[in-house]
């Protein structure tokens, strides 16, 4: 048996990432120069000593399935346990998509029971953070809790965006409100739960039998456990945590890696973030290149100017090209004289000579019209094209005739 099994909800579409999630689920989206979002919860599991992880997929699973493979890059290729991709499946009595987060776990009760765990850790695949789940589990055991919810103290003005927990002095949750207008606490749920399995199973079955339920962890399971006066505890997490569900937050979170004042360090050898790596040559910075405060990955060839930017594997920046305050995903080529500012460029793109993508905030008159420009995956942007601020590009940008 396993003491604790992790279930990672990775079926989300990530619709607010628009062009970037056209062909892949949000957890597969690239982050931080060589990672994908899912590398963070997976690496946290391994670093916390959890070696059995079910990954629940639904939306565009192909990329994610291939990426996870047998789990070897995370050391999750195990004889007993390891990583398992769990898509919805057909049963003798019919088949169902995952109707909600709770239903997704409900449909995989049999998977969990193969490991006969005492505890189940529920994670989501859309957050960037480093966290020792073992410490959270310790607290869960010490408090003899039925469920422990990781919480983050957020600024008061942001509290209405989150599920907010109100706790008594010993950390027991007395109230839970989803996105409250007038929050009476600033402890936001991080979407990370440890359940005592026996309890979770009972509530999952009850929830499934309730036709009114939306089968959602926050809205339904936690609310009914609270109503039944079960033992719900908050686990205070301190450190960097970011939901990268929007273009702005994805961009900001990448830029946070370049800010020495942000306490988030992917260079920490004690808490490595593992990923499936392409095998690329070392990176090459030419004598004409200018690189300032940036992060550059293997296989890149830089002959232009890079400033406050993140380049993923095998990106080519030709001479005279400029990349500022931007994120460029793998295998993209930026040709001579092209300029990229405040933009996210998807993987496998070609930005032709002289093209200009994105604008600086000060160059746009009305602040409402400014935003990060995004070029979707595998697109080309023609010579001398201009793609303005806040643009969301789904198709090749071709020359006007």
């Amino acid at each position, binding site marked *: 048996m396993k003491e604790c099994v992790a279930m990672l909800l990775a079926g989300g579409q990530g619709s607010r990432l628009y062009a970037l999630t056209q062909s892949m689920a949000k957890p597969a989206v690239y982050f931080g*120069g060589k990672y994908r979002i899912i590398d963070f919860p997976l690496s946290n599991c391994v670093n916390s000593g959890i070696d059995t992880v079910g990954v629940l997929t639904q939306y565009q699973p192909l990329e994610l399935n291939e990426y996870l493979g047998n789990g070897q890059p995370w050391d999750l290729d195990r004889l007993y346990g390891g990583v398992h991709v769990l898509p919805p499946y057909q049963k003798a009595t019919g088949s169902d998509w995952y109707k909600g987060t709770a239903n997704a776990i409900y449909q995989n009760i049999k998977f969990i029971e193969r490991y006969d765990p005492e505890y189940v850790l529920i994670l989501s695949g859309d957050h960037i953070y480093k966290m020792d789940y073992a410490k959270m589990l310790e607290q869960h055991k010490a408090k003899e809790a039925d469920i422990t919810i990781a919480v983050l103290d957020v600024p008061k003005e942001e509290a209405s965006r989150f599920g907010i927990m109100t706790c008594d002095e010993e950390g027991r949750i007395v109230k839970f409100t989803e996105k409250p207008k007038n929050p009476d606490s600033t402890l936001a749920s991080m979407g990370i739960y440890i359940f005592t399995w026996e309890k979770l199973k009972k509530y999952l079955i009850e929830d499934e039998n309730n036709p009114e339920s939306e089968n959602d962890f926050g809205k339904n399971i936690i609310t009914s456990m609270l109503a039944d006066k079960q033992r719900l505890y908050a686990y205070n997490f301190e450190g960097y945590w970011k939901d990268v569900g929007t273009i702005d937050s994805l961009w900001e979170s990448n830029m946070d890696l370049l800010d020495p004042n942000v306490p988030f360090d*992917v260079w920490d050898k004690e808490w490595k973030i593992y990923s499936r*790596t392409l*095998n690329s040559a*070392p990176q090459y910075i*030419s004598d004409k290149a200018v690189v300032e405060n940036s992060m550059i990955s*293997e296989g890149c060839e830089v002959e232009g100017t890079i400033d406050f930017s993140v380049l993923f594997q095998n990106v080519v920046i030709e001479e005279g090209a400029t990349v500022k305050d931007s994120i460029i995903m793998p295998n993209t080529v930026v040709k001579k004289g092209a300029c990229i500012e405040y933009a996210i460029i998807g993987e496998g793109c070609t930005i032709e000579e002289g093209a200009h993508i994105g604008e600086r905030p000060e160059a746009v008159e009305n602040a409402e019209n400014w935003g990060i420009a995004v070029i979707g995956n595998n697109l080309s942007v023609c010579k001398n094209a201009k793609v303005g601020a806040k643009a969301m590009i789904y198709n090749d940008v071709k020359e006007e005739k």
Partner: protein
Amino acid sequence: MATKNNKVLGIIFPNMHDEAIPELTRIRTMASVPFGGRYRMIDFALSGLVAAGVENICVVPRTSYVSLMDHVGSGKEWDLARKRGGLKIFPPYGEAGTKATQGRQGALEAIADYIESTPCEHVILADCGIAHAVDYADVVEKHVESGADITMVYKKELLDETAKTDNVVLDVRNGKVCEMLINDVTEKICNCGMWVYVFKKELLVKAIHECEAKGLSEFERDVIQRNVGTLEIRGYEYTGYSRRITNLKSFFEANLDLINKESLAGLFKQYPIYTKVRDDAPVRYAIGSSVKNTVAGDGCFIEGSVEGSVLFRGVKVGKGATVKNCVLMQDAIVEDGAVVENVICDKAVRITAGQKLIGTATHPVYVEKRAKV
């Protein structure tokens, strides 16, 4: 690309040429000498064979192979952790009174039974003393097409005197090797052997047993040279990128030569070169850093200035530090304000704050593993 080459067995000799750079091979084999920012010399042979579809590879070390074993592990990074074939390491073994295997001939004697038992028809023998991107599939194809007993890969090169005690020069006419000279001193461009041979398996096994019976121990001399004229020995000319490591200086120059796109492409873009994954973060170029003309592996953290250098994985360059024309191996640290120029730092060397260490382009300074300067 590669189809399976089930009929071919690869054999790699990690210790040949160890004596070329005693500084680096004191604690390791030539095969495990770090090269090019993230690789070790054996990666070229292993990746080249894998790219050619060879799935059955033997590595036969003689001494100092701890770092080699650690590097290749089960072979999974090269996709060689296989049930059929895959990577096999044959460390030397001796019974009372026997010597550890010597040279290629000794290594081959030790594994002759294994070679014989594999279902292959041809055997590729390769060393690790030259960084190159030979297309092994093409070599084997030409070998089979020509019906040769032995095919030797060579390149037209001008050898300097550092190579004079470790070279093979061929006289090739219409693809046939007519003469083979060992350690001949030459001052002109010659057909220089690249230590890559393809043999018909039966012939190789027979030759190994014959030499063993006669007490002959020099592979090049006793197995190949003696048979020039009697066997069909063909030459295969390699015209791609290569760098021969003959001493510390040529090691230094070969690394620094990678700081241009053509060299990088010549070595790394012919087929994927695999190596042990270390899960480092991307390179961080901090505010105030200045980097020009440099090749870097992942995990480096650069706050100072770097020019004309090769940085291996996890190298740190502190604030105000200057690194010029250097080869800094894995996890070397150049602390704040230190200056290094024409220096080779072995793994995990620490140049303490404010220190100055300067060699010349012809005589780089070498700092040994884990030393603190």
